[in-house]
């Protein structure tokens, strides 16, 4: 069938990478906006209410399922492309040059796999523990808190996050994760537009600039939260 042929063609596979990649970029923005509420100095009220809404609204649930699917697709196709491409290259040169391409662009699969490892740890730490609350209502690692905005008790994810970030090693791991994400986006953001054929001397410089800004600002936004928290307990 034409659609299967398209999705299996070289350009088709790259289109999958670019569309899922751009969707994930959008997801990062939404995720960051939510996380920034951790900085609100209200003992977690804003963040906990937000986390409750995010896990209980049917539309958001639907989007989050789509999100898992796209991350999975992006990772599986990305790793597949890596092996197909490596096989197409065959062997490498005795003399390696650094003069013709950026480091990020040549290491997208490595950076992506590290992001994947980060995601597993991240999900295990926050998401899984929150989900497990259903089965272990009395567990002490998941206290409840009263949400003023919603008028009932919600899981106190805020405490979960802040206690995690009391640990300097977790803070460091988180910061390294953001650095890796930054490199992936440094090449990925603009690359996705090129893959889609969206290139023109009028707007391509804008996309490249936007991509670099995105690659710095988004990971920086995520990084600010543990840094701010850790400095808070130090001083």
């Amino acid at each position: 069938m034409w659609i299967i042929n398209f999705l299996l063609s070289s350009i088709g596979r790259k289109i999958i990478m670019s569309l899922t990649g751009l969707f994930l970029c959008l997801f990062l923005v939404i995720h960051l906006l939510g996380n920034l509420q951790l900085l609100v100095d209200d003992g977690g009220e804003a963040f906990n209410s937000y986390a409750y809404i995010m896990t209980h609204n049917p539309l958001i649930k639907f989007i989050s399922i789509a999100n898992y699917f796209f991350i999975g697709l992006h990772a599986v196709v990305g790793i597949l492309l890596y092996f197909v491409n490596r096989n197409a290259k065959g062997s490498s040169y005795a003399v390696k040059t650094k003069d013709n391409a950026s480091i990020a662009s040549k290491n997208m699969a490595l950076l992506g796999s590290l992001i994947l490892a980060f995601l597993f740890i991240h999900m295990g730490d926050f998401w899984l523990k929150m989900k497990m609350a259903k089965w272990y209502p009395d567990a002490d690692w998941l206290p409840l808190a009263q949400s003023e905005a919603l008028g009932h008790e919600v899981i106190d994810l805020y405490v979960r996050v802040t206690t995690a970030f009391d640990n300097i090693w977790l803070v460091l791991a988180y910061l390294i994760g953001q650095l890796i994400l930054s490199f992936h986006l440094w090449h990925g953001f603009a690359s996705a537009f090129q893959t889609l054929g969206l290139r023109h001397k009028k707007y391509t410089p804008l996309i490249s600039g936007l991509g670099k800004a995105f690659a710095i600002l988004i990971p920086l936004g995520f990084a600010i939260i543990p840094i701010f928290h850790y400095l808070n307990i130090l001083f």
Partner: protein
Amino acid sequence: MKLNLKIWRQKGPDSTGGFETYMVEADEHMSFLEMLDVLNEQLIHEKKEPVAFEHDCREGICGTCNMVIDGRPHGPQQGTTTCQLHMRAYKDGDTITIEPIRAKSFPIIKDLAVDRSSFDRIIQAGGYISVNTGQAPDANAIPIEKDQSSRAFDAATCIGCGACVAACPNGSAMLFTAAKISHLALLPQGKVEHTKRTSKMVAQMDKEGFGMCSNVEACEVECPKEISTDNIARMNRSFLGSIFGSEG
């Protein structure tokens, strides 16, 4: 000047190759290929097998002379084929490592010579326009805007040398294929069969086992004709158009 050469020697497609070291006395006015000629004469005098490498025009227009010099296709000079690279780019006592292009779809024939007929098959799949033979038509019968003809001409300067494939960590032939699609697509005569041509040439490129473009853009840096990756974006647009475009 005295040079140390480390050259990849391989008897045939299926033999295992390896590097051999040679000393050669060259002149700074020689081209890189002339320096290899000197080495080969030396080897013939010593009753040894000369190094096989491809060359034809020696003026930068045929594309056969591509080899990987110190990790870079066609050597270190921007926008220059191996035959146009001159020994003044090197100095006395330099060591130069010379390897064949490495890509699955360009199997080694012998030493530095590789089989690039996969490129020919991509062209055969659609890199032409269908016209009746007969008298040459009047050159200016169809007016073409200058910017458009310049873009077509820039794409048409691709000499099919395979430096793009050689430079690509994915062994992708997208710069070559995109240049060959573009130089026709940009002109009225080529527009006629445009979408069919794109899908056929891309299909052949995939069939030959070339890799997929990760937009690393090393190809653009190493291309002796400085073909722009703009062409790859055009090919992708055209490919999407061939699938999702309206039927007219």
